[in-house]
């Protein structure tokens, strides 16, 4: 996933809106995501909202850990009102465990699926544009 120059750059994440109407957020390599970073990420995603809910592609391959509070924030925060679906790329063993844990324990309230490649994820997320 190529990060464009105009991406919102915050601690732990790059976030931007794709020309296909699907937002992207990419975890920076070796990130240990805390509640504060999750909140900032939520703000960054919300700032992309204009008038219509949008799906979001989350590339979690660089993640090292995510605190319980951060996971809870991602499953419950106000982003739900702005986003229509989560597609999470989980290619590495760590991101795979984290993604599955997020799905199984934190139970996001928007449609969420895990993918091991970007193309399949985008294909599925197009249903929610």
């Amino acid at each position, binding site marked *: 996933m190529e990060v464009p120059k105009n991406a919102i750059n915050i601690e732990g994440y790059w976030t931007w809106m794709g020309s296909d109407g699907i937002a992207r957020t990419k975890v920076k390599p*070796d990130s240990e995501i805390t509640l504060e970073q999750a909140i900032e990420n939520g703000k960054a995603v919300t700032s992309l909202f204009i008038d219509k809910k949008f799906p979001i592609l989350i590339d979690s391959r660089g993640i*090292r*850990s995510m*605190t*319980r509070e951060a*996971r809870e924030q991602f499953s419950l925060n106000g982003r739900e009102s702005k986003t229509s679906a989560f597609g999470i790329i989980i290619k*590495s*063993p*760590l991101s795979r*465990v984290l993604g599955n844990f997020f799905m199984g324990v934190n139970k996001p309230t928007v449609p969420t699926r895990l993918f091991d490649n970007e193309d399949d994820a985008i294909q599925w997320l197009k249903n929610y544009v």
Partner: protein
Amino acid sequence: MNGENNISLSHDKRANEILEVILSFARLDFAQKVSISSDDDVLDGIGAGVNMLGEELKHSALTIKEKEQLIIEKEHLLKEIHHRVKNNLQIVSSLLNLQSENIIDAKFLELIKESQNRINSMALVHEMLYKSVDLSKVDLKEYIQVLTGSVNMSYSSPTKAINFNYDIEAGIFLGVDTMIPIGLMLNEILSNSFKYAFPDKQNGIISIKLKRDKNNIDLIVFDNGIGLKKNFDIKKQGSLGMQLVHMLGEQIDAKISVKSEEGTHYEINFTIQ
């Protein structure tokens, strides 16, 4: 070969570390964490999963502990409330006592005594509630025995001996909303027997029966006194005591019957949840 051995040793060490953390969870120590390497391999994945599980377990344990603490605090508070209500009622009763010291009018003194008995019957409910195990129910058998003793003392006279006969089923517990009206009604009925049932007799017997059939409770109080006036109707009685019995009976949807049968016979039938 050496390189492979090193990797294998390192894997063993990491697997052991994961096992150690899982064992610490079994000891309810959720602070331990598996260290995650930068390899992002399968063991890192398992380690991250174990770490997240530990966080969830810690959160659940804290939630349970907080809830237990809340229950304990609520129980203390409830106990304190019942204690204070009882104390305040006793203060009111003592104030009436003090007031009565300067009064000579026998009728007025009688009214004060009646009021004190009513207050005491309510205070007794709160006293028994804060001494009870679950703080919400009173043992009706115990209550009746204590209340009859208290009314007996209040009306005791050196020239008259009133005895009680009990046939009370054990294991009936009432919540405060039912217990207060029942206590007050019982107090009125007993007081009436003491005051009016035995004008000339030196000895009298008041019998109390309590039976339960599923949720249906039958409380019968009868004395071997002179009985009621002809055409007695509880609803048309002018005395505050009988008005109270009628009114409190309506409050708990009780059926009350009063009749003269070799004395006065009261029957209160009510249901409990």
